[in-house]
């Protein structure tokens, strides 16, 4: 099959055994790769008892998958998946880096990791073979140290194996930090230093399997494609479109830290108690001038290079290094915590990076703790002596360390905002869910809906409530379904697997069917995609989300909704007083159910499932729900 390396590596960590497996063309044609294929694999193996599978237990499966377009479509990405410890559903969590390309060049389209290793291990993948190795010398280490050691060791070993080759370019690594090792629900799978597959919380899944890292080096070419000339031309066309766009190049998403607050009133401020601010100290000009030390940074084949590297060169936070920070992290470990300077924001994000905490999930739970402290619900004593006042960078830093290590109050917060709210609520005999800005167990991305000025409401108010990836702001429910921001298009990119940022222009999106055809030989086309193939994947993800478990099951009547805070009026700024119109929201929700083929309860309709060959899913859903 064109575009694919031709095999996947299945790793049973319990038995420490590995084997190559293949999927038939019919499966790959329907599920593509990445998010789509992960969904299929997870459903096939775990679907019949999905609600019983513990995401942090050995039965869960960790998937690290590429897709046929990875390495060809500009901006290579890896898709990480499994049963999510956050939503109890399936999330296609993507991360950029060289790893997916090295993997394909080594002859593998992905890894399927099952079981749990008896001791900490890492996996070393080279051309058509892999080894499981002892990771005790890197277990417990943060991002920078882990990457340094594995890069050195990997390179040294490659040189020893083949000294005649010349200088060996470093292998690529994906790994978890202490937050993942300790099975928190708020941790990411990391690439390089700062790239995270955060949504879904798969860092904890990887850590719970005692898997510290996967290293890959492939010397082979990328797989054969159907029409190399056409692929080459399309790469040029997509690249030219991206080169023509200035926004992400100049500022990354780093202008949004000021703009989404000041202009759009949609940025989390102090745990979403407000969404407007006008702190000029947080303007992108300040980031650019004070802390950006490298202007353009990107990953394999990326024409946009939206990243920057930030590091204060003087002052109390000097030497803290992170990328940008990108908007989500500017918001979540910046404005959300009452922090409004670039240096402090960089310091906090660099810390979270090193611990392996997801900026969004971690920042959200830190903000939640901050509000409980503000309201006197959690005292200094409850917080092990920490007083997280808004803007107190060091206090939040201390709290973040405790979360990653599951120490003291950190052990509860490590469960993520939703579960922490329930737990602390039980201890304090209070309902704390009004302060939890989450969607089905997952922190929501830093784009609010109350002002209706951000993209998250352009396609309707059900953006998070009806997404199969819960709070994922990059995969929202949107009408019309064919719009660039619609979850159905995101499924395409997350299954491809390549970076959405390089296909944001309509001009680029229009080329995607040609691109798929030039690589794979398959003519997918919008008709098939929006009516059949995307839906099949969407319904499977929806089914997994609804079955949920083992600790929580979502009821669409209750949980296909926005968090309580999104119905509170905005307290300040130009849209002060504005909030989400519930009646309007419920109308959008009904429209969306209808549009995607779910019934009035939000359950995928039987005839729709059967039409797509998902009879088994239909039976399972009817039997449980």
């Amino acid at each position, binding site marked *: 099959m064109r575009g694919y390396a031709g095999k996947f590596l299945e790793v049973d960590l319990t038995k420490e055994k590995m084997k190559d497996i293949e999927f038939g063309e019919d499966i790959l044609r329907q599920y593509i790769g990445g998010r789509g294929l992960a969904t299929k694999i997870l459903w096939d193996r775990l679907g019949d008892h999905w609600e019983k599978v513990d995401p942090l237990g050995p039965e869960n499966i960790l998937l690290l998958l590429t897709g046929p377009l990875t390495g060809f479509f500009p901006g290579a990405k890896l898709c990480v998946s499994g049963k999510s410890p956050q939503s109890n559903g399936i999330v296609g969590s993507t991360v950029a880096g060289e790893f997916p390309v090295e993997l394909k060049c080594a002859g593998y389209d992905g890894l399927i990791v099952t079981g749990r290793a008896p001791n900490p291990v890492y996996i070393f993948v080279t051309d058509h073979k892999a080894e499981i190795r002892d990771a005790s010398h890197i277990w417990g280490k943060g991002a920078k140290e882990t990457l340094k050691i594995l890069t050195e060791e990997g390179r040294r070993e490659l040189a020893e194996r083949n000294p005649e080759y010349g200088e060996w370019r470093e292998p690529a690594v994906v790994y978890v930090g202490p937050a993942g090792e300790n099975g928190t629900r708020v941790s990411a799978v990391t690439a390089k230093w700062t790239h995270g597959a955060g949504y879904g919380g798969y860092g904890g899944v990887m850590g719970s399997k005692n898997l510290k890292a996967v290293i890959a080096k492939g010397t082979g070419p990328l797989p054969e494609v159907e029409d190399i000339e056409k692929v080459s031309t399309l790469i040029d066309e997509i690249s030219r479109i991206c080169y023509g766009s200035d926004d992400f190049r100049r500022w990354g998403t780093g202008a949004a830290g000021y703009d989404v607050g000041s202009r759009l009133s949609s940025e989390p401020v102090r745990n979403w108690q407000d969404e407007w601010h006008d702190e000029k100290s947080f303007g992108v000009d300040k980031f650019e001038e004070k802390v950006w030390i490298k202007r353009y940074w990107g990953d394999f084949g990326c024409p946009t290079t939206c990243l920057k590297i930030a590091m204060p060169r003087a002052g109390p936070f000097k030497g803290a*290094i992170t990328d940008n920070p990108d908007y989500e992290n500017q918001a979540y470990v910046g404005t959300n915590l009452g922090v409004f300077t670039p240096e402090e924001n960089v310091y906090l994000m660099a810390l979270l990076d090193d611990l392996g905490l997801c900026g969004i999930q971690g920042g959200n739970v830190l903000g939640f703790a901050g509000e409980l402290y503000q309201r006197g619900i959690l005292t200094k004593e409850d917080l092990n002596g920490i007083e997280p006042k808004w803007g107190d960078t060091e206090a939040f830093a201390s709290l973040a360390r405790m979360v990653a290590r599951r120490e003291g109050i950190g052990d509860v917060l490590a469960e993520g905002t939703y579960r922490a709210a329930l737990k602390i609520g039980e201890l304090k005999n209070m309902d704390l869910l009004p302060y939890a800005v989450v969607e089905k167990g997952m922190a929501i991305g830093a784009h609010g809906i109350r002002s209706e000025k951000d993209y998250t409401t352009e396609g309707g108010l059900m953006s998070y409530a009806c997404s199969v990836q819960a709070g994922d702001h990059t995969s929202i429910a949107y009408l019309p379904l064919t719009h660039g921001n619609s979850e159905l298009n995101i499924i395409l990119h997350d299954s491809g697997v390549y970076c959405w940022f390089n296909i944001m222009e309509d001009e680029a999106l229009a080329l995607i069917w040609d691109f798929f055809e030039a690589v794979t030989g398959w003519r997918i086309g919008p008709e098939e995609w929006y009516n059949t193939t995307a839906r099949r994947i969407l319904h499977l993800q929806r089914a997994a989300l609804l079955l949920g478990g083992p600790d929580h099951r979502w009821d669409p009547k209750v949980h296909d909704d926005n968090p309580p805070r999104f119905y509170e009026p905005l307290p300040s700024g130009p849209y002060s007083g504005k909030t989400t119109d519930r009646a309007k929201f419920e109308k959008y929700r009904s429209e969306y159910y209808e549009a995607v083929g779910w019934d009035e309860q939000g359950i995928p309709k039987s005839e729709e499932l059967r039409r797509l060959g998902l009879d088994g899913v239909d039976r399972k859903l009817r039997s449980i729900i």
Partner: protein
Amino acid sequence: MFMLVPGAEVPHFCSQCHDYPCVESCPVEALSVSKETEAVLVDKEKCTACGDCIDACPGRIPHMHPTENYALICDLCDGEPQCVKECSAGKWNALWVADKSESHSYKLYAKRPDEVTRDLVINLYGEKGKEMI
């Protein structure tokens, strides 16, 4: 392109040294210098993949083709290097084509990636860079 430390990317390109130590070192005369571009040319048929050129290069810049039996050395794409074209189209402008001058010691740039990285990380990250070496 090497990235031994994130952020400190190091292109590892042939510098077309004036004295072409690689060409001099080849025991089977598989290497020559193009009159048009002054780039090093590899005759695939003659090359035995012995690796002497790699050892002779101060930066160990040539490397072996992973499966075929010959050394890979930048030939400047016959005068229109693709890498320069793309870097310029992308407006990063980190690479450009230059006329070879007699008065510059291009050989100084033929360095192993580790060596370049060591200096670059200090320049980029300051004191913090020391932890990364």
